[in-house]
């Protein structure tokens, strides 16, 4: 089975230098566990130094599609991923736009099943089963047939440690490619974002009364003072059951 892993340099949160992205490393580790035929692909304008981390963390050979800055990588990636059985990538790149749209676009363009936010993949009969990470610790099992696209969650098991020997042995093969130009964006320094607030037409007096009635619009909670501990415990359990917070 042929697996392609898509990687992209992330921005280090402290130093701001390019480094390997967590989710992409997890995708690389998962692919190497599943198959021995793993191709690592990158598309974009980053130089070799930015991809060096992936070589040091276990990628033997990176195919790099060189595009001019500000061009769309989708068409170039689609053309090389046509015959690949399984495409793995990180759920979100830590650099570039980091919009998390690429796996969805690839699945749509290639007409394949998409398994988002995968923690683990395993084969059963003719299908591949994926363990999907959902918020609040829920894990869902999905099953799909090949060919498929899976985006790997950053919490999945990561790649091997950084090794200088692997960095020296690894190679990056460059190939020129073209892509449609993306619309220009204007970058600004980060600041506190201004939230949309509805204009209130009520009088000042009404606003003052609203402020007295409840601090920040939140009514005060229930306070239970009466009864012994057993009765109070029952109150808490009733509250948890009423709001479906426990399953018994």
């Amino acid at each position, binding site marked *: 089975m042929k697996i392609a892993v898509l990687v992209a340099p992330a921005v280090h949160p402290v130093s701001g230098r390019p480094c390997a992205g967590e989710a992409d490393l997890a995708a690389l580790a998962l692919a190497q566990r599943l198959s021995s035929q793993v191709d690592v692909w990158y598309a974009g304008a980053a130089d070799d130094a930015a991809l060096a981390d992936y070589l040091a963390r276990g990628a033997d050979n990176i195919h790099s599609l060189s595009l001019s800055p500000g061009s769309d990588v989708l068409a170039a990636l689609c053309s090389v991923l046509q015959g690949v059985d399984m495409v793995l990538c990180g759920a979100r790149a830590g650099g570039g736009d980091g919009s998390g*749209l690429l796996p969805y676009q690839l699945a749509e363009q290639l007409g394949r099943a998409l398994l988002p936010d995968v923690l683990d993949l395993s084969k059963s009969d003719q299908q591949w089963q994926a363990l999907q990470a959902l918020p609040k610790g829920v894990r869902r099992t999905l099953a799909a047939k090949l060919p498929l696209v899976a985006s790997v969650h950053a919490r999945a098991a990561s790649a091997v440690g950084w090794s200088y020997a692997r960095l020296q042995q690894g190679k990056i093969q460059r190939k020129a490619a073209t892509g449609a130009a993306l619309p220009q964006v204007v970058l600004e320094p980060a600041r506190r974002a201004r939230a949309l607030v509805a204009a209130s037409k009520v009088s000042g007096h009404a606003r003052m009364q609203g402020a007295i009635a409840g601090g920040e619009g939140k009514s005060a909670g229930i306070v239970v003072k009466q009864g012994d501990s057993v009765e109070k415990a029952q109150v808490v*359990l009733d509250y948890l059951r009423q709001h479906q*917070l426990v399953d018994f």
Partner: protein
Amino acid sequence: MDFSTQAIPRIDPRRPWVLGPSGLKRIVLGDDSGSRDAALLAHGPAHKPLRSSGPFSQRLLVVAHAERGQLDDAAREAIAAAAILAGKDGEVLALLYGMQDAAPEALAELAVDRALTVADPGYAPEQKLALLQQLLQQESPHTVLFADRGEDADLGRRLACRTRLSVVTDVVEIAADGVRRRQPGAGFSLRERAQLLLLARGVAEAKLPFVGKGERLQTTALSAISEQVQDLGSAASPASELALEEADLIVSAGNGVSNVPGFLALAEALGAAVGASRVAVDDGRFSRDKQVGATGKTVQASAYIALGISGAVQHLQGIKSCRHVIAVNLDAAAPMIKRADLSIIDDCQSFISAFEALVRRERKEKQQ
């Protein structure tokens, strides 16, 4: 002039009055009969005006998944953003999954004008996309808004790729000159307002001074659609095995908890993750990775049970996004009591043993 000898005319500010024949209030001096104005202390629920009664010439659509029949703050903010962006002639439409039981008043309170409420089919992206595409065709909204988290983020991205609508993800600010999104490592990036916006937290103030119409939206039923990917069911791993940030139910101990083994037994019985306040961690009762608050972890559990925690500002910061907070404390004036949705004024030791016994008994009864 000697004021002390003067008789000071004192006027009762709430003098009794009778309604005169002309319909005006008439105050009869020296008369005790008649009605008095109601005291201004008892506030009923404030009556909010309707945002706009129409006619509407354009529409915005918000898509949200409810959890346990209720929308979370991110989804409420998305609806609020739509209501603020709509203007006088804009109608706010909503496609709400898992809110089929919601009353029209609840929908109006959300500032939704017309809502299509559907039972959540679980994992069914193709079915949801078909319904959304039908809705887009029927209503042709100029903007579609999603909250950029969980199921909504997934569905929004699928819709953008399927319909080729222009999309901006992680929107942190909607302004007159466009939308701003967070760019990894590069601050904000300013873009043109797209047809489909995935909103990060804090884009709009969820509290609105108006209500919507709260009507129901009708569509024709769709035929069954086959899914590419099969759902084999989902399981929530016990909260005790999860990272604190991911847990849905947390019991947290503070200085008021001295019996740590008893507390841990309660957490195990409830199947809840264990948290602790800074004081309890500094004392060495809990490890550092259990600390909740500004210097520890920020949690987003549905239920947070704070045992013997007074609720310092730093701790309250860490539990800001918890839905239900239950506090057990001896001090009824503690800041945690003000934050909590349910407060129990009791000694923690006796409460913990009573609660643990109750939980174990109820669980046993459930299994039989």
